[in-house]
């Protein structure tokens, strides 16, 4: 039994726990919340996209379902939005099975393209569907009717809720890494045919991974819409939602436990900083810089920033690379 990298993990956890105490302003808290949300969705994507190597560029389909469910329950039945979260998860599982069975026969780019197509299909359809507010979207309660509406002026409760979800997700991923399921996933990534010939039930494992990934992506979507109090087809199912998950995971290191976390740690502050400095000027410099830095990272660290960490970190702090 290997001893997990205790020191960095505890340091990290401690840092995240006290962040709100240091940066107590609502704006900094919101950045923290945005970061956690990005880390959750990218880590959820990582299970199927990173570990199993099935690059989905349509994960917004789960994110969107999760995001719509709470606000739909609120709009239709006046329920507290959190009551809708289980529905989002159930629909996402159903969708994962429905999508997984046909598309997992495809490999490589074909799988990516199929997932994009399905996500786009759902996005356009929601944009025409009156029950879910069509193009205008759905809103949550503007002011809370009680604590159960989870509508706070302060972002602090969201911060700790999101942090708890991220901790559960990372712990689960950690467990998977060291179980047979995790080895199967990496075997599939390394070579599907070889894995199959060694007796790995490839199709079944892939579907399981997708379901697990979908559950947490859907949860991320629910958290997003409860916090934002608004959802429309573009912010739920838009291709940028999917791409952001892929970018964050790739930036940090896909298929690594802390890869998406590191990616979000770089990307979200980068987005915020460029927008704060240059957004108001309106020259587009925000994205010139943002895009430029992404290009530079891809050019000099194509394997993700986590690899850089593994090269420069003190010996005892390096996680043994599981793959």
């Amino acid at each position, binding site marked *: 039994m290997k001893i997990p990298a205790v020191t960095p993990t505890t340091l990290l956890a401690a840092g995240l726990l006290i962040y709100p105490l240091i940066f107590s302003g609502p704006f900094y808290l919101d950045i923290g919340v945005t970061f956690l949300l990005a880390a959750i969705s990218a880590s959820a994507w990582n299970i199927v996209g990173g570990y199993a190597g099935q690059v989905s560029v349509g994960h917004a389909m789960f994110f969107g379902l999760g995001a719509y469910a709470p606000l739909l329950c609120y709009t239709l039945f006046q329920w507290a939005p959190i009551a809708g979260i289980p529905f989002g998860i159930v629909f996402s599982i159903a969708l994962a099975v429905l999508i997984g069975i046909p598309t997992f026969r495809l490999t490589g780019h074909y799988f990516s393209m199929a997932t994009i197509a399905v996500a786009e299909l759902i996005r356009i359809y929601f944009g025409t569907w009156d029950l879910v507010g069509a193009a205008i*979207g759905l809103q949550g309660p503007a002011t809370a009717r009680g604590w159960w509406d989870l509508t706070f002026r302060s972002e602090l409760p969201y911060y700790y809720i999101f942090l708890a979800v991220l901790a559960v997700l990372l712990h689960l991923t950690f467990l998977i890494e060291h179980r047979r399921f995790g080895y199967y996933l990496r075997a599939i990534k390394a070579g599907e045919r070889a894995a199959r010939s060694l007796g790995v039930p490839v199709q079944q494992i892939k579907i399981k991974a997708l379901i697990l990934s979908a559950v947490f992506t859907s949860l991320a979507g629910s958290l997003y819409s409860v916090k934002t109090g608004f959802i429309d087809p*573009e912010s739920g199912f838009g291709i940028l939602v999917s791409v952001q998950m892929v970018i964050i995971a790739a930036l940090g290191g896909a298929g690594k436990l802390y890869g998406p976390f590191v990616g979000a740690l770089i990307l979200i502050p980068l987005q915020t900083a460029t927008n704060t400095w240059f957004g108001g000027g309106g020259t*587009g410099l925000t994205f010139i810089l943002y895009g430029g830095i992404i290009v530079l990272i891809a050019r000099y660290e194509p394997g993700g920033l986590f690899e850089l960490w593994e090269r420069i970190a003190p010996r005892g702090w390096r996680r043994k690379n599981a793959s």
Partner: protein
Amino acid sequence: MWRFRVLKAAAAAATLFAFSAAEPVMAADVVKIGILWPLTGNAAAAGQASKAAAEVAVDIINNAHPELGDDLPLAKTAGLPNMGGAKLELVFVDHQGNPSLAQQLATRLITQDKVDVLMGAYQSSCSFTATAVAERYGIPFMVGESAALNITGRGFKWVFRGTPIASDYARTYMRFFGDMKKQGKKVDSIAIVNENTDYGTSVADAIVEEAKKANIPVAIRIPYIASSTDVSAQVLQLKEKQPDVVIFISYTADSILYMKTMKNLDYAPPMVIGDDTGFSDPSFIPAVADVAQGVMNRSAWAIGKPGSTTYKINEMYKAKTGRDLDDTSARNMQSFFALADAINRAGSTDPEKMRDALTKTDLKPEQLMMGYEGVKFDNTGQNILAATYLIQLHDKKYELIWPDKAAEAKLQWPMAGWKK
């Protein structure tokens, strides 16, 4: 500069004290207005144009502009007279059309930049989330221009909208059709072509509803997805139905594409009405002037005759951007003036006082740069005196043709289109 401003404010405060010792005056030397617009992304063109318009408005308010006449509030004096000549300071942020970012930026403007009031946010999605933040913090929010009906009317205390809304536009069209029928023009059926996001859907829904009331049959309604690569299917459907009037609710690229495709497919309806937006974009006229003669457009903004206040405002805008002021930006600018007027009347940056002054806003038509009947907010925060003109493309310029009392040119009906 800063010291000078403080001195000036102090001096102004001292003078005021001398006259009315009873009420202490809050001599804020600057009033900070946070503005959220899409300055990048798909709606960047509209956001950028509105930003320039707001900057012109600030110039008009902060500096003395006696040449703009006596009617336009705050133009003649430098700064806000009731606040000792306090200046307005704008803080622009770019929400990129992302509702979650709009929420974050509204929080930033209130808590970090400590702005006194907020304005924004163009896309309805972003207005929804940004106004909710303002509501929670109790900061007035002026919605300059957003289409969705329920931005006002959600029971919010702090949200005001200076622009007319979809149902106002729809009623205007019906009144216009009524006038046309009286003149013997044939308006027996209309067709609606709308892009299917918040803007197009809101306006098209309102038109369908008002047309029902006015007893004008809607021959066909064609929703489509904005930024289409091809619109010939829509044009062919119209060609088949032969409506008397076609109303397009479209963004820039599609508006231009519709005009070109109508010529390509040899379709010339008796009248085309563009619902502002794409048809008001400064890129529209140079692109299609030769194939879209007589196209009508809704606009509450008219440049007016040389020498008029609106003409001078347009000259200021033109000097800054090289383009004419368009209706969308002008409506944002008018909302901005109404907001500044209310802050001045409040005489303070206390949120409650500013809110109170906003609810008591009562601007008369001659005090406006737009063709509204005034600015007056109902208890949901919606301007109920907003109105709009109809204009028509003659040669390379839109001319005001309706209502008759304001008309500066004669209506051309049927339109010439591409048949010259």
